């Protein structure tokens, strides 16, 4: 009981912090450009943490996360732009946006199920190629679908997303995915990453869990897509390309495969870096791909490894630093004495 209470308290405190930042933005204490960048950061946290569930926790390899964001974005945009379509007209304004975001996530999850089931049944790397193909197919279909504007995109969405909305979504995503990982179901997913055959012989239905993880991740990708669409007030086939999938992948790798805190940090850092390096846009992807290759070559578990950043870990590393420093000092003293 105490555990649950403290978890709720923590959740409330974090939300209050997010709300305070939003108020500061509304009062003009944080300029609009920074407010925008911070909102994008929060959305990318959702994307990176959910992708980490597939690539880091489950040990599978998806290359189509942006495709699921596109599915969520278009679904939600269609709902918010057409007051009578899909949802009855009594839902308006932000309520409609929230429901649209949820439906966007659910559509992405359903598509994730359809894409994941045939490829996750098999061992090996079929998921990578199927999701890569899926991302391309989604793009081609959207280009040819006139109802949503074809190549020029779907414009004129109401700007429903503010920092607090994106922040709230990221906190919900982090909490749910973290809770999932700590549960027995999440452990089943990790066991698949560690050794699929052993997992199966320990009674873990591996296909089912791979699909579950994939569907959860697709859901959150879809909601992130909706957030993004209602931030930029438009969505085009070019908004969610393979390049975005690669950026998300780099966030996961940079933060460490399987480390949620790592993904959060990397999502924030890379979004910031992309803004700071705007002048070098042309070379950004070269840098990203080089980074991806080098991290894999020298730290195959991701730059920061699978460990979670926590107060305990900080204390541990501080302690080990101090003992090392002391030992060095002692060595120096003995060396000097000799």
């Amino acid at each position, binding site marked *: 009981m105490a555990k649950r209470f403290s978890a709720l308290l923590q959740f409330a405190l974090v939300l209050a912090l997010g709300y305070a930042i939003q108020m500061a933005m509304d009062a003009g204490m944080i300029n609009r450009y920074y407010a925008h960048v911070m909102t994008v950061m929060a959305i990318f946290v959702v994307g990176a943490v959910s992708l980490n569930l597939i*690539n880091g926790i489950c*040990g*599978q*390899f998806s*290359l189509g996360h942006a495709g699921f964001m596109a599915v969520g974005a278009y679904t939600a945009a269609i709902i918010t732009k057409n007051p009578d379509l899909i949802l009855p007209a009594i839902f308006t304004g932000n309520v409609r946006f929230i429901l649209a975001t949820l439906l966007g996530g659910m559509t992405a999850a359903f598509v994730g199920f359809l894409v994941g089931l*045939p*490829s996750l*049944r*098999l*061992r*090996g*790397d*079929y998921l*990578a*190629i*199927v999701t*890569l*193909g*899926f991302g*391309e*197919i989604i793009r*081609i*279909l959207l280009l*040819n679908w006139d109802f949503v504007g074809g190549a020029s995109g779907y414009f004129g969405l109401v700007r429903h997303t503010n920092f607090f909305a994106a922040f709230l979504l990221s906190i919900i995503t982090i909490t749910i995915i973290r809770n999932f990982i700590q549960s027995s179901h999440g452990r089943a997913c990790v066991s698949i990453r560690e050794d699929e*055959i052993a997992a199966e012989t320990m009674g873990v239905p591996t296909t089912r869990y791979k699909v579950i993880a994939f569907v959860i991740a697709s859901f959150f990708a879809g909601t992130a897509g909706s957030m993004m669409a209602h931030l930029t007030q438009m969505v085009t086939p070019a908004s969610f390309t*393979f390049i975005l999938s*690669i950026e998300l*992948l780099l966030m996961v*790798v940079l933060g460490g*495969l399987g480390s949620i805190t790592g993904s959060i940090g990397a999502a924030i850092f890379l979004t910031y870096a992309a803004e700071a390096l705007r002048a070098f846009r*042309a*070379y950004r*992807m*070269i840098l*990203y*791909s*080089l980074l*991806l*290759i080098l991290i*894999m*070559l020298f730290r*195959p*578990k991701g730059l920061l490894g699978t460990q979670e950043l926590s107060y305990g870990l900080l204390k541990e590393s501080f302690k080990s630093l101090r003992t090392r420093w002391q030992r060095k000092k002692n060595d120096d003293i003995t060396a000097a004495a000799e």
Partner: protein
Amino acid sequence: MTITQQILQQLINGISLGSVYALMALGYTMVYGIIKLINFAHGEVFMIGAFIGFFSITKLGMDFFPAMFTAMIFCAILGILMERLAYKPLRNAHRVAALMTAVGLSMLFQNLALAHSWIGASAKGFPQVFPLQRFQLMENVNISSDRILTLAIAIFLMIALQFIVHKTIMGKAMRAVSLDKDAARLMGINVDKTISFTFALGSSLAAAAGVLFALNYGIVVYQMGLLPGLKAFVAAVLGGIGIIPGAMVGGLLLGVTESAVSAAGGSMFRDAVAFAALIIMLLVKPTGLFGKNVREKV
């Protein structure tokens, strides 16, 4: 135009396109067969091959065949370097690490091409090296000289590959390594050299495919490797990944299906065909048309 004529015409178009996929699929399948890695950068090798051919003709004034040969040699070396520098260090790491490196390489090549002042973002016209001729086989059924050339070169290269794989020492080593790496090493086979050779072979075939593709479609552009790469992989899976004749049949099959779909009025869905074929294959027979049931050793 009768239905029969239309079917024949599409069959011809499809076989010629399919032979390009098949050449590329061979590279995927050989590399997968030997180190169990989907070499995502294979599509970019195809693109680079096409550009080397293009520049050899336009900047160096070479004829078509020397240009294609240059592209093949260049990409063979590129393939070896790629394997040595990027894949070899990860041979014993988690397979996701190797896959991510492959994706990274693919992006790297694509964006280097994009940033290069000779290539850039816009598509360039591939020169019409041979005067285009159309031969009428029967009423309403034509074949162009470029198509004939493509098919002839593809068939020649495939026969050459079969010869290398089945009649040479290196080919024997390749087959041995793909069956059992450790046993092959114990038999005195230089496994590293064999793997490098496989990459060289696969990459040079991709380069040839790239040049032929450019010849047929008349353009070269930095993104040209993405979709053909994806489709060639699907072709490899259709035929049974790791099986060389499977890749050839899979490529032809995919080419013909694609032509048929675009002729039936679904040109918009042409690119979706490969994906649908992949999903269906994974559901029905994941080991591919020629696949044996390979069991993971426990």
